[in-house]
């Protein structure tokens, strides 16, 4: 298991790098108290398993309007052309890229690593797992949360 600070820094760096590169949005890691609340409208929750050598689960929660604007930027089309499937897939691809970038920062270069496939998640994605790390981000004034979950022994 990686040291907490190393994991948090790697995840935060990966989120910033990925979203700025893929969706051309400004990303700032933030304290939760400085962020607007989630709108509760069309929030996207995506999960991905970290398989080796670090084992755990990443969950990314994206505020609904933010998910739409990120998808719009990634596809380069107007909002009315964005379907729910496109939005879900775009957020999955963001988390997939975040996970890979984070692992490449954490794992020594001579050691292989493996991650799972991203998938849409519901609230039960939390059950049976301990939230070991939560990161909050301000993305163009909207809220994005990233959770690292371990497994109960």
């Amino acid at each position, binding site marked *: 298991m990686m040291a907490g600070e190393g994991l948090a820094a790697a995840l935060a760096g990966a989120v910033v*790098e*990925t979203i700025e*590169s*893929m969706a051309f949005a400004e990303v700032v890691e933030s304290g939760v108290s400085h962020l607007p609340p989630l709108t509760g409208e069309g929030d996207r929750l995506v999960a991905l398993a970290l398989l080796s050598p670090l084992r755990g689960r990443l969950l990314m929660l994206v505020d609904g309007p933010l998910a739409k604007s990120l*998808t719009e930027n*990634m*596809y*380069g089309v107007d909002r009315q052309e964005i379907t729910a*499937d*496109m939005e879900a*897939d*775009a957020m*999955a*691809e963001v988390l*997939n*890229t975040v*996970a*890979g*970038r984070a*692992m*490449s920062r954490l*794992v020594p*270069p*001579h*050691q*292989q*690593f*493996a*991650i*799972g*496939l991203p998938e849409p998640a519901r609230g039960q994605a939390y059950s049976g797992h301990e939230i070991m790390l939560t990161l909050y981000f301000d993305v163009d004034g909207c809220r994005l949360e990233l959770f690292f979950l371990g497994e109960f022994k």
Partner: protein
Amino acid sequence: MTQSPYPIKSILIADDSGTARMIIKKCFEIAGLGDSCFFEAANGQEALSILQDKRVDLLVTDLNMPVLDGKGLLARLKSIPGLAGVPVMVITSGSNPANEKELINLGAALVLSKPISPASVVRACGNLNACNSGVRP
């Protein structure tokens, strides 16, 4: 855009994410390959079917895919005499030197890390030309 020893007229993009396929295609178009014919596959099995049916000058594949993943696709491709010479570019979020080394040993010509950019595609295609050892029939 560097002149290829053989022109890349057709590109197959294999990735389970439609978003990723779209981004990869856009990067290749901006990099100067907009006149190429693009095929898309959502997994390695679909990619194999296309490879056996169409002429493909470059296979661009993700690693993590359902049904048949990138490593499986690479292994199957290299075992088929008529397809073993198709150059393979792996574009993946799961890349580091150790992972890259394994993929090169399996027969990939190049490995790129997501997120990619048109500039990284231009560099990769230049390296692909340098790696290519012959003209395809």
